[in-house]
């Protein structure tokens, strides 16, 4: 197992390096660069200004050289400087990554907590009233556009019945007297975004869990277990659910890999200070340093969670081994 993990980690680093160069190179192919954005906003910029700025930003160098300079600065712990916001990348992204993680993790946790019992119950009782009810809401959740749901939640819970804040990350200008007061304040701002983000996720998870559970419960060994006179809970959890887990591990692992990527629509609708919109804007404005760090985080998370999923397969199914 140790050798397997080590081999996968080396592969991961190699993939990150290749993907990061490809991303960097593709970004340089996009029309416009930070200097061109300045030209558009200021008609008085002269050709001398353009030459000076390109040299200052290193844009006069070939892409591979700029990439190596970037790697060198990353290796020294300097994540670079955002040319859009004019602040160091770590100062810009650090707090937003934490906010995005809090939102995505809690939404995912909430989604799994709700979807798991509903999906299993539906899978065990297909065609029942509960199953129809769960299916109806699952499809509803999947179909509702998240931006519309977000806006509706704001109108209902912040405008018509003002019990929750309309948007933001925390109450502005308040010095919290205790950690509890701080957490309570942050929690209030998280409720609507979490609900908005979870509705869709719950729908998707319920559908996967239901079908996976139904398939597992149709296996011959389930019939055998029942024939042996095993308790219903043992049949469901030890034999049924464990076998249904394999596809679910993949789904959950991939969902966890997006924890730091940000939910751009939800974050934008709720003015939540996350990383989603920042990443979008950085790509659109050729803010290379910010965009590259977010690429690296996304790629690393996908690769790491895939590795975690591969390891978890072994625990869920003893037939899978990595020796």
């Amino acid at each position, binding site marked *: 197992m140790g050798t397997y993990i080590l081999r996968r980690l080396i592969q991961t680093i190699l993939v990150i390096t290749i993907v990061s160069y490809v991303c960097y190179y593709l970004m340089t192919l996009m029309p*416009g660069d930070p200097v061109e954005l*300045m030209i558009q906003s200021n008609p008085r910029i002269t050709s001398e*200004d*353009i030459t000076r700025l390109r040299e200052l930003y290193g844009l006069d160098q070939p892409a591979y050289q700029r990439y190596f300079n970037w790697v060198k600065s990353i290796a020294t712990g300097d994540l670079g400087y955002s040319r859009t916001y*004019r602040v160091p990348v770590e100062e810009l992204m650090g707090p937003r990554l934490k906010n995005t993680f809090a939102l995505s993790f809690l939404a995912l946790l909430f989604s799994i907590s709700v979807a798991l019992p509903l999906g299993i119950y539906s899978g065990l009782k297909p065609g029942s009233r509960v199953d129809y009810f769960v299916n109806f809401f699952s499809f509803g959740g999947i179909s509702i556009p998240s931006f519309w749901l977000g806006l509706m939640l704001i109108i209902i819970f*912040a*405008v018509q019945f003002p019990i929750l804040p309309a*948007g933001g990350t925390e109450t502005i*200008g308040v010095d919290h007297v205790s950690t509890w007061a701080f957490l309570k304040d942050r929690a209030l701002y998280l409720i609507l975004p979490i609900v908005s983000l979870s509705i869709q996720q719950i729908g998707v998870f319920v559908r996967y869990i239901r079908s996976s559970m139904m398939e597992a419960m149709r296996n011959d060994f389930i019939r055998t277990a029942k024939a042996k006179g095993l308790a219903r809970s043992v049949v469901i959890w030890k034999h049924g659910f464990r076998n249904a887990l394999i596809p679910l591990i993949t789904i959950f692992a991939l969902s966890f890999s997006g924890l730091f990527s940000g939910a751009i629509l939800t974050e*934008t609708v709720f003015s939540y200070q996350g990383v989603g919109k920042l990443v979008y804007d950085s790509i659109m404005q050729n803010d290379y340093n910010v965009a590259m760090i977010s690429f690296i985080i996304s790629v690393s998370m996908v690769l790491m969670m895939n590795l975690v999923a591969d390891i978890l397969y072994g625990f869920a199914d003893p037939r899978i081994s990595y020796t």
Partner: protein
Amino acid sequence: MSIALKTLLPVSISLMLMAPAQAKVTNAELKIGISQEFETMNPLISTMVASTYLRYMVNRRLTNLNDKNQWVAQIAKEIPTLENGQAKIMTENGKKKIVTNWEIRENVKWGDGTPVTCADIIFTRKVAMSNNTSVGERETYEQIEKIDVDPKNPKRCTLTYNKAIWNYAHQLGTFYILPKHIEEAVFEKYKDQKEGYEKNSNYSKKPTMPGLYNGPYVVSELKLGDHITMVPNKHFYGDAPKIQKIIVKLIANTGTLEANLRSGTVDKISVLGLTFDQAIALEKKLKTEKADFKVEFEPSAVYEHIDLNLDNPILKDIAVRKALATAIDKDQLVKSLFEGKQPSAIHFMTKNDPWYTDDPKSITTYRYSKRQAIKMLEEAGWKAGPDGYRVKDGKKLSLTFMTTAGNKIREAVQVYLQNQWKQVGVEVVIKNEPGRIFFGETAKKRKFDMAMYAWVSTTEKNPRSTQHSEMIPTEKNGWSGQNQPGWRNARMDKLIEDMDLEFNSKKRGELAAEMLKLYTADLPVLPLYYRTDNAVIPNNLKNFKIPGHQFSETNAVEYWTLE
């Protein structure tokens, strides 16, 4: 998605129509919503429009453009002129230069009580001129050849310009002064590193230091991408601000921004908030409900126009350009699409500009006439073909029409114009691109027939960047310059060059009049309309005015009061 939108939006709109009760806003706190991102508060480095909006609340300059479109002294005692004897033209080594005497008002101080002096002006110029600082345009600083401080009065100095320009007061309207006593140590330490100063500037590291600001407010809290809080500057030289706390909150989604206004999360939406069509819709809704806020509109200095590529064989013909202009019913366009709130444009100057004229004796105007447009095309040899479109020498009168994709207003204008031009036999093929590609590649490299976008028309502005032939973007000049139509007119070039050096305001007016005459006669551009700024303000907000020029409403923030 579109079906969902069609069915769900009416429900949301009807819910939106129900307005909840709101508490009255007072001078204790005003929360302003904006939908555009802002960056560092370093006035030398920042370029975003939203940053400029915020900057006027915390920074003041030597000169300013007031709401009557007049240049006035801001932190300076007066504007030096040849008439008041504080400016004089001298000749050095055969070159004419202008020398101007400036004096900063006695009580102008930074937020920590340190007086603002000429040493700050010298320091700012030094930082701006460093090759390691990413100041976009350096002309404002470069033109100042030297600054001599009066040894008896550190607030008095003489600025010598490297040529005799008349618009030095205009240029100093964007000369933002840095506090030497705070920023010099940072600059000296990092000046040899690329972007070293801006990375380590106190505006980035400690933006809540009061000494960084000299305006009516100082920053008390700043979270990029979220909000900025400002409180009155105790050492402000002017009238003490009435509002005790201003929070500017970024809400990027304009639908959410409106919901936040209704929930009381924000009290006011700035000119950088709602789109024009949203503001119109909100104004209509407010007529049927009792709300504590209202929508204000004011024509701005931004004018929408269509650049005609003069290298295109069809558009090279002045008769075709004139026919295109004559075929547009602009009055109907602004009435049907903008409810008359965005005024039509006849050239590049706004009505507030002292040089503006609509006198048909001075300029060529193009009154809508379908018949006249058809006649012009017929005379130019473009005959009607079997499909209704005109043909000449076997070639169809077909042009591509481009703008930024996804901009609803521009797309509606395109469809309107496409229909009008079709009626005179001109085929217009709409081909839009995302803003990034449109501005970054297509417009810049002049790969279009007709391109619609906007320019800011500032008061008494020499149109060098958009109309001088040297400003045609080419690979050789690094695609700089904004003369995208590729207009070459020797007389216009001469007028532009003469204007820079003309000190007689009457003569400058005459030069501007001739420019307008050439511009409207040659038609390198089809002017369409002036955009209108909008803001949603609490009913009890007094002394608020959208200025309608390049400087934003926050320039007079100290006078705002909620009664």
